[in-house]
């Protein structure tokens, strides 16, 4: 686990460094542009000289290509995930994912199939400072996830340390467990880049913490749709690769803090 934590810390440090670099760059540019003008002209003209920048607000909907394409090469997997986010403020987005999965887990001694749907909801915070009309995102976010699913034990082996009576045949008298539920929280880190027009490509990783898990009687949830494989602890990981389309709804003018400070002085 410490390995993951270390990687995440590394990840965050990179974000920090990048975010700061870009921020200082823009500030410098702004100062360079405005300083000579303030000395010559009045403050009134400064506000006019700053080009009006408008951010687009709207709904972005997409699909996880990783889950969608996995069904073609992995016969044990069928699934689809729809993603969506809505821009609330300059930096914050409401985000949600909705998915359905059918996954057969083949372990050395167990073979089971989990089938179900899940929903995740939460927010994303964009840490990337865009230039002009760029609309890229590097986000960290939180989600709450909930899944309702069933699990079928297809076959299992008896573990017997004593092999005196020889190899034991595989049992196939497993049962189907329905009405199972699980809930979890996750930290999502990701990025989205505008490739053309309103089309975005992005990918992200999620670190999950299982909060509630209803295990079947006499068995265990080995795979939870949306949460993925369960480990001994309550941690899980996820990955997605999305293509999404941005539906612009309205625009908001960007207030540049530098200009705002100068204005009341007049």
């Amino acid at each position: 686990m410490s390995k993951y934590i270390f990687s995440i810390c590394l990840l965050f440090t990179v974000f920090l460094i990048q975010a700061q670099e870009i921020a200082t760059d823009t500030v410098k540019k702004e100062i360079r542009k405005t300083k000579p003008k303030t000395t010559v002209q009045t403050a009134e003209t400064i506000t006019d000289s700053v080009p009006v920048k408008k951010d687009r607000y709207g709904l972005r909907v997409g699909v996880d290509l990783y889950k969608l394409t996995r069904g073609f090469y992995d016969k044990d997997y069928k699934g689809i995930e729809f993603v969506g986010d809505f821009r609330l403020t300059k930096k914050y987005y409401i985000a949600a994912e909705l998915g359905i999965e059918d996954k057969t887990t083949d372990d050395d001694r167990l073979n089971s199939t989990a089938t179900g749907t899940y929903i995740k909801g939460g927010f994303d915070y964009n840490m990337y400072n865009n230039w002009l009309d760029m609309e890229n995102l590097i986000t960290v976010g939180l989600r709450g996830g909930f899944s309702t699913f069933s699990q079928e034990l297809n076959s299992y082996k008896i573990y017997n340390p004593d092999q005196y009576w020889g190899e034991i045949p595989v049992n196939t008298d497993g049962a189907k467990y329905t009405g199972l539920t699980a809930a979890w929280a996750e930290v999502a880190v990701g990025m989205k880049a505008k490739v053309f027009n309103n089309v975005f490509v992005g990918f992200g990783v999620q670190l999950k913490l299982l909060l509630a898990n209803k295990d079947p009687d006499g068995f265990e949830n080995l795979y939870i749709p949306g949460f993925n494989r369960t480990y001994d602890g309550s941690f899980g990981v996820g990955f997605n690769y999305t293509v999404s389309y941005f539906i612009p709804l309205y625009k908001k003018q960007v207030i540049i803090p530098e200009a705002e400070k100068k204005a009341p002085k007049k």
Partner: protein
Amino acid sequence: MKKTLYFLLVFTFGLSSCEKDDICDANTATTPRLIISFYDIKTPSVKQNVTRLKVVGKDQPEGIIFNEGGTDVTKYLTSGDSIAIPLKTNEDSTTFSFILNSDNPNPQLANTDEITFNYSRQNVYVSRACGFKTIYKLNTQIPFVKTDSGTDGIWMQDVRVNNPNIEFENETHVKIYF
């Protein structure tokens, strides 16, 4: 931007590489063996060592190994006061031959008794790595059938069930008095 992309890639590959890491721990309680303890018939509370006992499952070519480090002959022998023998996990009865003094040069002194244990089975989930285990319950009506194989007489004078629930190996399930 590019740096971040690489880090994310490395991060995800790092995660995928630690997928198959679970092996069934040897300390996990899995399918138990039947524990038999030997007692003195004259003073039933005192354990008694058997002499060079060999236990062979029915239709098995070799005996149960009691002594891993022994030679081809001695690894099947025990002179202790208790043994652990595996029951079949796919049938409701298992038959064993108990051969006392099995490697004695004088075959007249070897004595073979046969016991068939009758039980019911239950498969219980253990974990992802270990799968399932089988636990047993000796039948209440006829838990075992003792027969003399051959004409050498019966060396087990009494056999009693101590605990019909065979779930763990840290307790005696069957007591044999001789």
